[in-house]
């Protein structure tokens, strides 16, 4: 069977850095932080009071009817907003594809967790009779893909993927596989997350996973820096339109990049801690490189998982050095989580958008707040300023609790 090539024909995004890809990219190239004090909720009893929150956003009435807005949790709003941007860019609606051959596969780590918290409070205070009939449809992880299918009439494969902080990477992999196998012509993929809520913040805080730098939120996410002390919660969405490359070409679509390599492994080691020597992540990157049919020396840029945790950044650095050997010093690495915070199940979505922009613009977005590099983190992390570089292959790493790993490789499109 012929394996189809996978084109990326549209991207869309929203996060603390901005509400569109143009705005996010502009702010990233200015090395801005998208992290701020949470001022839209009462955080008095929260141990951590800042995050990469989305600002000045209300989904358009056209995407969600006014009566529906309060019925769907915010991860669904973000998914629909970013999908709309990506679809416009791809001009997918002008393509003459069979609707049963257009799918939606999105990642989310936690789905509509905030609405679960709020509804639980209603239940405790007022009882079962006050639990809204829209409660279940508002939080289930696959309602983002469900609403996208209903809005656009896409009737192909439709499901959510949940693998904690690797969710969107696994979603992109699943979507790319559908195209490669020729089962669909196009898939909406990537993912969304919106769980800046009392219980999730308390839970991650109890794990000692979060930075507590309440006084200087913009300095809190500092991957690979000596003074890093945990990740910063982010929220938002990153969406890609994947298409059968030949069909995209035939309809005259602009091809932004190709998805050429996928790796997926498990650490089989610990529920939350990464394997310190890259036990699962080394083979994950190697698989992706092998599946792309390239050599490790072909990779120009790695958008790292790089969450700004003391253990994780060192483990990933070791894994990169093991896979890339002498080339590890030549390639650029960066963690855009320094600017966006950690979008959990949407991380690979937003980071894939950065990877594709890096390819199309020939610019590598920086790792900000990298003032004093940890001596155990000894790679070129593209510190504090973007770098111009012609990029052919980009590798994105995403690792999640449960010891799950996923790597995606994007390639510059050349006819």
């Amino acid at each position, binding site marked *: 069977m012929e394996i189809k090539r996978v084109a990326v024909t549209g991207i869309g995004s929203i996060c603390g850095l901005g509400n569109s890809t143009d705005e996010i990219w502009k702010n990233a190239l200015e090395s801005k932080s998208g992290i701020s004090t949470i001022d839209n909720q009462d955080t008095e009893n929260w141990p951590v009071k800042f995050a990469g929150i989305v600002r000045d956003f209300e989904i358009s009435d056209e995407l969600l*009817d006014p009566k529906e807005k309060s019925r769907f949790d915010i991860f669904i709003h973000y998914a629909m907003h970013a999908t709309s941007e990506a679809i416009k860019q791809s001009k997918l609606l002008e393509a003459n594809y069979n609707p049963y051959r257009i799918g939606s596969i999105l990642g989310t780590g936690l789905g509509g967790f905030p609405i679960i918290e709020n509804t639980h409070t209603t239940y405790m205070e007022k009882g079962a*009779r006050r639990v809204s*009939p829209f409660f279940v449809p508002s939080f289930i992880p696959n309602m983002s893909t469900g609403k996208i299918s209903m809005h656009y009439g896409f009737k192909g494969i439709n499901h959510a993927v949940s693998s904690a902080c690797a969710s969107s990477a696994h979603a992109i992999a699943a979507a790319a596989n559908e195209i490669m196998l020729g089962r669909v012509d196009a898939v909406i993929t990537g993912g969304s997350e919106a769980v800046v809520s009392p219980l999730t913040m308390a839970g991650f805080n109890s794990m000692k996973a979060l930075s507590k730098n309440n006084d200087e939120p913009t300095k809190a996410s500092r991957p690979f820096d000596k003074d890093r002390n945990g990740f910063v919660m982010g929220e938002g969405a990153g969406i890609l339109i994947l298409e059968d490359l030949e069909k995209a070409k035939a309809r005259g679509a602009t091809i932004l990049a190709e998805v050429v390599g996928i790796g997926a492994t498990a650490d089989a080691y610990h529920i939350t801690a990464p394997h310190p020597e890259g036990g699962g992540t080394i083979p994950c990157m190697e698989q992706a490189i092998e599946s792309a049919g390239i050599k490790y020396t072909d990779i120009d840029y790695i958008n790292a998982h790089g969450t700004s945790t003391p253990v994780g950044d060192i483990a990933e650095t070791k894994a990169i050095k093991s896979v890339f050997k002498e080339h590890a010093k030549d390639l650029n690495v960066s963690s855009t989580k320094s600017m966006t915070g950690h979008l959990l199940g949407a991380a690979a979505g937003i980071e894939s958008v950065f990877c594709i922009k890096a390819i199309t613009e020939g610019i590598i977005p920086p790792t900000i707040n990298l003032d004093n590099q940890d001596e155990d983190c000894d790679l070129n992390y593209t510190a504090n300023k973007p770098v111009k570089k012609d990029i052919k292959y980009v590798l994105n790493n995403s690792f999640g609790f449960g010891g799950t790993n996923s790597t995606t490789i994007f390639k510059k499109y050349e006819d």
Partner: protein
Amino acid sequence: METQDKVIKIVSEATKVDAANIKAETNFVDDLNLDSLDMVEMMMKMEEEFGIEIPEDKTEDLKTINDVTKYLKENV
């Protein structure tokens, strides 16, 4: 506020349909296009606002603004 006006206000808020376009004879399904989940949510709001419990077998008979108003007047 009259019971009917209160009912119309609740329905208007739940459906985002302008209160001016909701009359006594307005039918929830035929005129406002409400589905079964919408109906449950709206009855819940009526219960909350009027401090009563509407038994499930009764809600099936409440098809218009007038039906609801009449039921509330008789039972609150």
